[in-house]
């Protein structure tokens, strides 16, 4: 279904497998090719080592130490990990919150994005305008979008509760200020910004061969059967992609929760303010990355923050492996998979 071609192969510069004596001009050509590749890849290779491999290894090392940036790290074995699971009063709450967001936000975004994409596809005239409208919220900077939502869902003066009052619904929820509703309100915010998923699904739906639908139609398949047996198998790999990237995005969910928590709680989500009122209300919005940030950069317990980073690494790596194993077909084209 994908139109991507496999990586280009330049046969002339690839040495034959068992060539003993290589003529001098070819040898020169090969060396120039190697130099060319090295020059192109050098910046990335440096960046990969200095800004990725080294910090990855250092994170693992720091996670076994007590480290506060001023003094040298002191090896303390697994004590950071033990503290995380047995003593830290907020760590498990943070895990639960991030888990909640992952379980509910990821499917909600994908399902709504799929429904909207299906709808947009049916609209012949004005479909482009609709696509733009549904995409627009995904562009809004997260800080701005979250600020807007804390205003919209402000319990006392926000338009949402005022509209609820106007249509005669007596229910006036506290939204971001209610521990039970804070995360669902974040979910609404995330669903509003589903444009990125929708655009990808839209492109995929358009690639489903029309003949398959016609064939199913002639066989007397109803709308649900057409979706189940034609659409779904065709878009399945992209759904997997959206799910895995969605999960990894939720594992690092920081900005919206931090800003909503601080603004609804009445502090500035910068510097000290984040440490004071984090997770308002009642730690309902204290996500794993926020707690890691507070431990690392407000309390400067860097070793402990690294232990949390290692756990984050293990979980996100597991999801990455799932995706990479499944998507060889997409990355290289069908022939090489």
């Amino acid at each position, binding site marked *: 279904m994908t139109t991507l071609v496999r990586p280009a192969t330049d046969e002339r510069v690839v040495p034959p497998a068992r060539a003993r004596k290589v003529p001098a001009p070819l040898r020169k050509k090969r060396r120039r090719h190697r130099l060319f590749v090295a020059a192109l890849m050098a*910046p990335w290779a440096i960046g990969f080592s200095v800004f990725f491999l080294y910090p990855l290894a*250092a994170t693992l090392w720091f996670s076994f130490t007590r480290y506060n940036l001023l003094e040298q790290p002191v090896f303390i074995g697994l004590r950071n990990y033990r503290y995380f699971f047995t003593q830290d009063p907020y760590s498990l709450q943070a895990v639960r919150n991030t888990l909640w967001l992952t379980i509910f936000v990821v499917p909600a975004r994908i399902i709504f994005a799929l429904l909207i994409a299906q709808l947009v596809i049916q609209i012949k005239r004005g479909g482009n305008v609709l696509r733009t409208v549904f995409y*627009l919220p995904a562009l809004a900077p997260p800080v701005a979008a979250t600020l807007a939502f*804390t205003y919209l869902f402000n319990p006392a003066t926000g338009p949402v509760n005022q509209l609820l009052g106007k249509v005669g619904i007596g229910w006036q929820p506290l939204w971001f200020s209610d521990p039970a509703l804070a995360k669902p309100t974040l979910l609404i915010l995330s669903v509003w910004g589903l444009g990125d998923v929708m655009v990808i699904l839209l492109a995929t739906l358009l690639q489903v061969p029309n003949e398959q639908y*016609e064939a199913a139609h002639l066989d007397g398949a109803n709308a649900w059967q057409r979706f189940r047996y034609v659409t779904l198998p065709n878009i399945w790999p992209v759904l997997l992609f959206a799910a895995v990237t969605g999960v990894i995005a939720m594992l690092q969910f920081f900005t919206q929760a931090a800003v909503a928590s601080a603004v609804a709680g009445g502090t500035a989500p910068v510097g000290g303010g984040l440490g004071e009122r984090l997770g308002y209300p009642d730690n309902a919005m204290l996500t794993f990355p926020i707690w890691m940030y507070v431990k690392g950069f407000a309390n400067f317990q860097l070793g402990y923050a690294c232990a949390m*980073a290692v756990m984050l690494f293990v979980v996100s*790596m597991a999801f*990455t492996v799932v995706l990479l194993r499944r998507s060889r077909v997409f990355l290289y084209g069908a022939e090489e998979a």
Partner: protein
Amino acid sequence: MTVHDLTIRRPVSRVRAGRRRKTLTFIAEHSVAIALALVFLAPFAFIVLTSVMTNDQALTPDLWPRTWRLDNYVKVFQDAPMFRYLANSLMYSVLATGFMLLSSIPAAYALARLRWRGRDLAFLGVLVMMMLPPQVTVVPLYVLWARWNLTGTLWPLILPNLFGDAFSIFLIRQFLLTIPEEYADAARADGCSELRVMWKIILPLAKPGIAAAALFMFFLTWNDYFGPLLYTSENADNWTLALGLATFRDLHRVQWNLTMAATLIVMLPVIILFFFAQKAFVQGVTLTGVKG
């Protein structure tokens, strides 16, 4: 027999029933789509309307501004150092995007269009780097930048882009894969060097992909909150718009009108840029997903 023949032979009444059902579906689909579109646009409408209200009115149930206070926008710039935030945001986004292009286009080219030992392994490295949350490596990186005395500035966020950005490399590579090799072969047959093939033949054809990567990078940095928060929290001189906006509410306790005006000011450049470059952008989003 074609589908067309089948429809002609249908009894007239069934054709009419089918047509009526089609009309009903048409109406249903369009009304749902329009209603949903209005819901998605509503937050923007509320932001705009509130941003031109008086503060007193912003706290009342009235949704339509009684007097249009356009000077709210002037006040935002007077009350907070918005120009400084804007300059910092622009510096971050423009330099990061420029640096990213310098370092990532070559790497993407080598990964997509040249054959060399270790290429698949290097690409795997790009993928893993792209997928892992930045928080995984953030502590040692912070220590590194603190040692180089660059914490408190935006440089820790800008400089790494000189050494390749994983997502951009991936995106540009995916686009480069779609360009047929015949163009390059023709140029080689004419005696072009590999450098010339890249520079004169392939990269000009890759402009849409490169544009999409640049746009993504600009938006990512413009919207970034975690990075500037981490490195510049203690130094308000180097705050970006995203960071300044996050504190704005605190400066003006209950002044929702000004807060919404500031919110709109931060949103606007991104939205304007999007409308100018919509085609490249949507193409880019599609490219990231279609590969699965």
